[in-house]
Structures are given as C-alpha cells and as structure tokens.
C-alpha cells in the first residue's frame, strides 16, 4: 500500500489555479523530495494532504484513506513540521513538546524525547516567545521525531537551523527511514534533498514537471568534465552528447550527457590525458536546467 497517493489533484482559489492535475506517490520506507520554486504549489499540496484544504478535483490519499474526510484518523499516524512553527508564547518549549505528544494519545517515550533534545542541543525550559526561529523549529522537530509516526511530512523544516543541526535532522530522517517510516520532504535546499531522498517530484506553476528515482533523474542530467590532454580534443566538439565545449587555459571544459560516459572514455583513450576531473551531476544543475528550459518555453 502506498503511504501517499495523489492522482490528478487540482485546486483552484477563485480563478487562480494553484494545482493542476498533480500526481505522485510515496511508498513505504521511502523518502520523497518535493521541490519547486516559491509559489509553485508545494505548500498547497501539503495542506491538502493534511486535510486543511479540500481539493477542487482529484484524489489525495494517505494510507489508503481520504485526506479530507479521514483527516483525524490520518493525523494519528503522521507527524508534521511546518517551515514556520507557531507556538503558544507563554508556554515553555518542554511543555509544548509534551502537549504535541500527548495530543497523539499515546504514552510519551521520555528517553527518546530527552535524547532528541540533547541531539538538537535544545533548552526546553525557556518560554516559547523567547525562542528564535531555529529553536521553534526544533520544538516541532523534536515533537515529530519523538512520536512514532508512519509518515513524516516536513515543509522546509531546516530553514532556520544551523548546518550542525541540519546534520542532526538528516541523521534523524535516516533513522526513521530505517525504521520503515516514509518521509515527504518539501524543501528548497537541494543538497539536503539529494542527501536524503530516493525519489523526487519537481513542481512548477502547479504542475509536476518531473518525478522519479533520483538516480534515474540524474541520468538525464549532464556531468561537467575538465580534461587536460597532450593532443587536441577538438574532435569532441562534433559529438551531439557533448555540450558547452570551451577552453580554459590549457584545459578543456565541457558538459557530458551522463549516459555517454563510456563513449567519452573510448574517445579519450589515445589522447594522452594528463588530468581528468569529473564533477558529479547535482540535483541543483538538473533543477536549474529544468527551470531554464521551462522559462524558455514560457
């Protein structure tokens, strides 16, 4: 059974079409990166999944249940961390964490909670109004990870965290993944998505423009190659899998369609290569490429 199954989901606010036939799914034990520029429809999708908004058409199912009708049942099995965490100003962080956990109805695992507070270096004794954005996010993250949820939904969860805490977050995501839980990570930080996710769904202007395994997507992208050789490499310029061919001092720099790496190596065999650098395909490059091509189309 899929943890999340969204099929041709549309949502419009008046005339504005926020989501246009969005479809993707998330399997058990998977981590899905949900990426897209601001205003693309990420948060709208998340809000529909949480039962806050009713879709105009299409279906959004979590654990095989309808996101709108069975919201209360679904909420028992999910943990959600928003990008901007709102807390009760006159309660302490510790009280809020206990409150979030007690609302789930299950007994609070104190050891786990303590361990998480320690890992995130969080001081639970201060009033929430005194917390910075990062600390407020920690409250939500600790409450989320301390709960044994089947599905974690993160909406830009690390936007206020420092790099050290970001790593703690990534460790925790790997832990819940190892436990068999699924994670939907909506994020801007592509390196984070790249480090954690098996699958990505890229949304733009309310439409899913690309979805699939990260590895497969990377295959579609290009690797940057920097070569220094004793013989001329100009014959490579003619190949249709070589792009942006240019010379930088004595070195040659170009982009290679990643699936033609073997072809390149055979071409370079007799060129007396003295230096070969290959920058692995980055999700960011892929994302930017998508972005640029889309803009050209627009």
């Amino acid at each position, binding site marked *: 059974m899929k943890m999340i199954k969204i099929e041709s989901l549309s949502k419009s606010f008046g005339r504005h079409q926020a989501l246009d036939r969005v479809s993707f799914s998330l399997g058990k034990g998977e981590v899905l990166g949900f990426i897209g520029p601001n205003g693309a429809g990420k948060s709208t999708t998340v809000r529909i999944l949480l039962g806050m908004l009713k879709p105009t058409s299409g279906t959004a199912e979590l654990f095989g249940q309808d996101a709108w009708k069975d919201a209360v*049942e679904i*909420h028992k099995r999910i943990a*959600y961390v928003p990008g*901007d965490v709102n*807390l*009760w100003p*006159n309660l302490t962080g510790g009280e809020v964490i206990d409150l*979030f956990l007690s*609302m789930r109805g299950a007994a609070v695992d104190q050891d786990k909670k303590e361990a998480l507070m320690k890992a995130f270096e969080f001081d639970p004794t201060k009033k929430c109004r005194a917390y910075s954005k990062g600390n407020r996010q920690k409250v939500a993250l600790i409450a989320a990870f301390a709960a044994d949820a089947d599905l974690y939904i993160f909406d830009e969860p690390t936007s206020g965290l420092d790099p050290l805490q970001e790593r703690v977050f990534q460790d925790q995501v790997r832990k819940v993944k190892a436990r068999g839980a699924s994670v939907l990570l909506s994020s801007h930080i592509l390196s984070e998505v790249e480090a954690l996710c098996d699958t990505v769904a890229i949304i733009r202007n309310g439409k899913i423009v690309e979805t699939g395994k990260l590895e497969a997507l990377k295959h579609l992208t290009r690797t940057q190659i920097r070569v220094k050789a004793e013989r001329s490499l100009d014959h490579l310029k003619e190949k249709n899998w070589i792009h942006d061919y240019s010379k930088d001092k004595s070195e040659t720099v170009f982009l290679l369609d990643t699936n033609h790496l073997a072809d390149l190596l055979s071409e370079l065999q007799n060129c007396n290569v003295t230096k070969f650098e290959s920058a692995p395909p980055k999700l960011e490059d892929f994302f930017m490429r998508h972005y640029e091509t889309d803009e050209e189309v627009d």
Partner: protein
Amino acid sequence: MLTVYALQWKRLIKKPFLVLLFMGLTIMMVTVVAGSQGNQKTTVRAFSETLSSDQLDTLVNTLNEDENFHFEQMTREDIQEDIRMDRYGYGVNLDTENYRFLVGRESQTMAIVDQYLQQFYREKNTLAEVRADFPGSDLEANEVVKIQTNSLTELSGNITSMSVILGMTFYFSIYSILFLMLNLFEEKKSGTWNRLIFSPISKTQLYLGHLVFYVTIGFLQVLTLFIILSQLLSIEFTGNTPALLAITFSYILCIVSIGILLTALSRTVSMLQVIIPIVATAMAMLGGAFWPLQVVNNAFLEFAAELMPIKHAVYGMMETILQNRSFLESIQPISILLLMSVLFMGVGINLMERVSR
C-alpha cells in the same frame, strides 16, 4: 478534547491577571453601588431654643427610635455656621409641640424628614391632648390596622442590592469571558489553531475543548462572586438552587456564543478589543443591569431589552428568588438563553469555518 481543555487552563494559570482583575472590579463596583443604595440613615442636626438639654435629650432619643433617621444634637450657632459653609443643607429647631426647619438650601432628604417629624408631632400632640382630658390614665398610641408585609420588609433593602449584585456580576463576566476569548482569536491569527488541527483531534473536540473552558471559567467566576458578595452585603440567595444554577449556566453559555460570533465577525484583534466593551456595556444598559427596567417607558427600548441575554439572566434570577419559583416555573428564561446560545454559536462557528476554509 481534554488536552485542549487542559492546555487552556495551563495558559490561564500562567496569565491569570485578567480574570482576577475583573473579579476585583466586580467586587469593588458592587460594594460601592450597593453600599450607597443600601440602608443608610439620614442624619438630621437638631437644636432647641426652648427645651432644656434634658428635655432635648429625651426628645432626640425618642426620634432616634426609627432606624431610618439619626438626630444629632448641636447648638444653633454651630448649625448656622455649618449651613453657611454649606457642609449640609438644613437643621431642625425642635420645640415641645412644634418644629421648624433652618434651611440654607433645599435638600432631597428634607421632605422625608419633614414627613417623619409631622407624623411624630401629630401623634405626640394627640397623646398630650388626650392625657390632658383623662388625667391619670395610662395611654399609648395604637395602630388601628396593622399590616404585616414581612417578606418584603425584610427584603426591601436587599432587592436593590441583589439586583446590583446580579447586574454587575453578569456585566463583568461578559468582559472577562470575551477578553479571554481574544486568545481564541490570537490562536487563529498566530497559527497555533492550525497546529491543533494538524493533531489527531477533530474540529468538534477542538471547539468543545475551548468552549467548555470558557464556560467553566465564566461559571466559576460568577459563582465565586455570588458567594463573596452575598457574604459581604449579608444577602442570602435563597431560591431553587438548580433553577438558579441553570440560569447562570445558560447565561454564561450565551455569552460564550456571542464571543464566538464576535470573533468570527472581527478581522483583527484590535477590532475585537474595541467591539467587546461596546457590546458588553450596550447589552448591560439595554438589559437593565444598571437600572431597573421598570423605569424604561419606551416601547422600542422595552423590546430591545427582551433581546438582551443579561435581562433574562438578572430578572430570571430575581424572580426565582423573590417569588420562590420552582425549576419548571423558571424554565422560560433558561430556554430563552439556551435558544440564543444555539443561534449565536451556530452562526458564529459557521462564519468562522467559512473564513478559515
């Protein structure tokens, strides 16, 4: 639901000043207003130019037997000086068979004092005449018809105080409940309301948790004030207790519903902060919390009073107490208040949900 309820208590305990402040204000207002309207003796300064000081003593003591008046012996010069300085308006010159006022300015108590003295001297003179006709016989004035109005004579002074207690307590409870409900509004604005919606709590439970909390707070506040004030002014709320509790409960529920409606109608916290005093005071004025509705003589205002929950609460309570009504006889104000609650709550929650969707 219990988690939401407990959360509200936790927040209140950390910030209890508002509720305590309004309770303090109620006690202060009631003691001031009810104290000034309660049984106060009228002080009258008296002197005599003809009577000896012994005779004046006896006369003043006899006059002071009435609990509504207090006659104070002074010299003519002192009284004249005080009147000149406008410390009080008048004094009385007492004689054996007559009295005269020494007046600096008209005063509203003068008529009552005049009436009392007239009656007193008439009786005194009649007795003296009769004694002169039948010397040696033991005479005393006897009332021909004696009317016993026990229950009301005992209550008469208390009715005013009681209506002040009820009116003020219900009036200030509007404030504390509605101002507490600003929290609800702030939760909606700040996003913590959504935090609660993301949790495994249904909207019904969420609303119930909040509403039950506000009703509890309001109910506790009103009960505490009734107990404190009835002790303070030594007034007993003797009546059908279930009926009195039911009226109080349905009134509080009604105010909470009005709060929900106002919260749904206002767009900002400051707007709500402005609306609350206007609504509370207007309701109390129209509903007769500040003055008895019997003095209102305008058909429109009388009709408007019927629409005010506070009217049904105060008069429902008064009638239950004074006429010793049973629960069934008090069912009218209770059902009117409950009907209003359902109406306001229904419209309020509907509006609120429409906005949040």
